[in-house]
C-alpha cells in the first residue's frame, strides 16, 4: 500500500467497449463509501464507438478538478497495449503503472468482460480503501446476476499482487 496522501489520482484508458467506464465507476463508489470526496470525468458519445476512451478518478480530503493533469496520476490503469504510449504522460514520476498486470489478469479472467474487474482488484491492493467499501461498491455497480462472478474475479486478481 502507498503512503497515505491527500489526493489520489488515477487515470484509466483503453478503447470503447472494454469496460473502462464501469471500472472507474466502481472505484468512484468505493471511494465514496470510504468517506472520501471523489470526482470522476470521462466523455461519452462518439468516442465510445471503438475509439480511445479515457477516464479519470480523483479522491481524497478535498478535490476540485475532475481531471487528472499531465504528470499527476499516481496510477495508470491501461486496458489496451496500443493505448499505453498515449496515456503514459499522465503518470507522475514514481507513479505506479499497472500495465505489467494486464497480461496476468487476462490469463486468470474467464472472459474478456471480466478483465476490468480484475484490474480493479489489482488496483485495490495499492489503495487505502477498506474492503467493505469495495464490497458495497460492487453491490452498487453490478447487477445481482453478475455480482458473484465479479466479486470472485476481484479477489483472485488481488492475490496476483505480492
Amino acid at each position, binding site marked *: 500500500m502507498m503512503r497515505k496522501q491527500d489526493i489520489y489520482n488515477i487515470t484509466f484508458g483503453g478503447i*470503447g467497449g472494454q469496460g473502462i467506464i464501469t471500472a472507474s465507476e466502481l472505484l468512484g463508489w468505493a471511494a465514496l463509501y470510504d468517506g472520501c470526496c*471523489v470526482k470522476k470525468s470521462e466523455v*461519452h458519445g462518439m*468516442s465510445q464507438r*471503438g475509439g480511445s476512451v*479515457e477516464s479519470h478518478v480523483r479522491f481524497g480530503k478535498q478535490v*476540485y478538478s475532475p481531471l487528472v*493533469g*499531465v504528470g499527476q496520476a499516481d496510477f495508470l490503469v491501461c486496458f489496451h497495449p496500443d493505448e499505453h504510449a498515449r496515456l503514459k504522460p499522465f503518470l507522475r514520476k514514481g507513479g505506479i503503472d499497472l500495465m505489467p498486470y494486464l497480461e496476468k489478469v487476462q490469463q486468470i479472467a474467464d472472459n474478456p468482460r471480466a478483465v476490468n474487474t480484475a484490474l480493479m482488484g489489482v488496483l485495490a491492493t495499492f489503495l487505502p480503501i477498506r474492503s467493505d467499501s469495495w464490497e458495497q461498491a460492487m453491490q452498487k455497480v453490478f447487477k445481482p446476476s453478475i455480482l458473484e462472478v465479479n466479486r470472485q474475479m476481484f479477489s483472485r486478481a488481488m492475490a496476483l499482487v505480492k
Partner: protein
Amino acid sequence: MARKPSLEKAFLSGNEALARGAWQAGLKVACAYPGTPSTQILEALAEYPEVDVQWSVNEKTAFEVAYAAAVGGVRALFACKHVGLNVAMDPLMTAAYTGVNAGFVAVVCDDPQMHSSQNEQDTRWAGVYAKLPILEPSSPSEALDFIQHAFDISEQYDTPVIVRMTTRVCHSKEDVPCGGSRKEVPVRPLERNMRKYVMVPANARARHEEVEKRLLKLKALSERSRLNRIEMNSPSLGFITDSVSYLYLKEVFPDASYLKLGFLYPFCDEKIRKFAKSVKRLMVVEELDPFIEEHIKSLGISKVQGKHPSYRLGELDQDLVRSLAAGKPKKVKPRPGRAPRLCAGCPHWSIFSVLKKLDVFVAGDIGCYTLGTLPPTSALHTCLCMGAGVTFNEGLRRAHPEEKIVGLVGDSTFVHMGIPGLINAAYNKARGIIFILDNSTTAMTGGQQHPATGKTIRNEPTKRLDLKALCQACGADYVDVIDPQGKVKELEELVKQRLTADALSVIIVQHPCVLLK
C-alpha cells in the same frame, strides 16, 4: 482519510444530479431529444415516476411541449445539447416575451472540444440574444442546487430560465449530498390571458416592454445572488470565472481570490467592479468565447486581462489554465488516439461498401453512420446538421443535375428533421435516392427510443410510426425496404436500378443496431 459523510451521498454525474434537483423542485413534465452531452438528464428523470417524461420528435417539439406545460401551470423542463437549442430557437425567442405560469427551465449543454458535436457554439450568448437569465453550475452538486433555484427564479420573475452546462459538468461525477425530498408544487389554474400569450404585434409590443423591465430586475437579483460568490484570499491575484474553469483554477491557484459567477447573465456589474478594485491583478478565465471578458472591458475596467485568442478553441484543464494565466498562447501536445469507427457487425457497413463501390457522392447526416466518412469506407461527403442529408441531395443536384448524388440519414434523424426535406424534394420535383439507415434506435447517443421504434422513453409500447407509409405519403416514387444482412448483392442491384431511374426513391436499409440488447 476517513471522513464520514454528514448527509446521504450518491456518486452522480452532472446530468443525474440536475435531474435529482429538478425532481426535488417538484418537476412534473420533462421533454428532450437525445444529444451528447445532455442525453442522461431525461434518462435519469425517467427513473422518477412523478415526472411525465418523453423523448420528443425534435428539440422544437420538445421545447414547445414542455414550455406549454409550464404555461398550463406545472413546473417543466426542456433539455438539449447546444446545437439542439438552434432547432428550438423559434419558440425560445418568443417564450422570452410570453413568460411562464409555473416554472420553466431550458437546460442547454455545450460541448467545448467537440467530443461528440459538429460545432463549438457558446450558448452564453443566447442569454443576451433572447434576453433570458443564465445560471451556470460548475459541478454536479451545483447542478442539483442551481436547478431548484432556477425554477424559483422562473416563477418569481415570470421568465424562462436557461441553465447552461458543458460536457465536463454533465459527464463528471462526484459525491453529491442528496438527502433532500421532493417538494410538491400545486398545479396552477389554466389562464386565458390573451394579452400575455397571444403574440400578435400589439400584445408583443407590450410584452417586449415587460422583458426589458424584467432584465433590470434580474440584474438586481444577479447582484445579490449567492450564486455570484466572492472568495477573498490573497489580493495580489483575482480571477473572475465560470463553469468548470473555476475548479481547474482552484486546483492550480489555491491562494488567489475569486469572483465565481453562477448567475452568469444578466451580469452583476457592481460585484464585478467591487472585486476588480479589491485585487491587484485581475484575470478572466473562461472556456470558448471571451464572453465575460468582453463584458468586463465594456464596463471600463481596463486592468482586466483576458486570454490569448488560441484558447477560444477547445476546453481547458489544469495545465491550460496555468499557461493561460501566464499569458502564453495555447499549446497542446497532441496525444493521437484511436479514431472511433462503426462497430464490428454494424449493419451500416454493407450500405457503405456498396456506396463506395458505386463511387457516388453521399450527402450524409448526424449519427453513427457519419463514421462512414472515415477509412476504410470513406463514403460520406457532407455532414452539416440534423436532416441535411435529405436536403443536401436536392440542393447538390440543383447544382449538378448529371452527377450521381444520394442522401443518407438515420431513422431517428429522419424523424427528427428529415421529413420536411423529403416533402420538399417531392413537391419541387427533385430526383435521387434517400437512404434511411434504420437500425431501430438512436444509436450514437447510446440507444434511445423514437417514434419509429414504437416504444416510449420508459420502454412502454406506443403507436409506431410506419416509415414506409410515411415516405410514400411524402411523395417518394419508390420506397423499398431491405435487410442488408447477407444480401449485399441485392442491395447493390437495387441501388444501381434506382440510381438510373428518373425518380425520387427512398431505400430503407433496415437491420437492428448490434448494441441493442
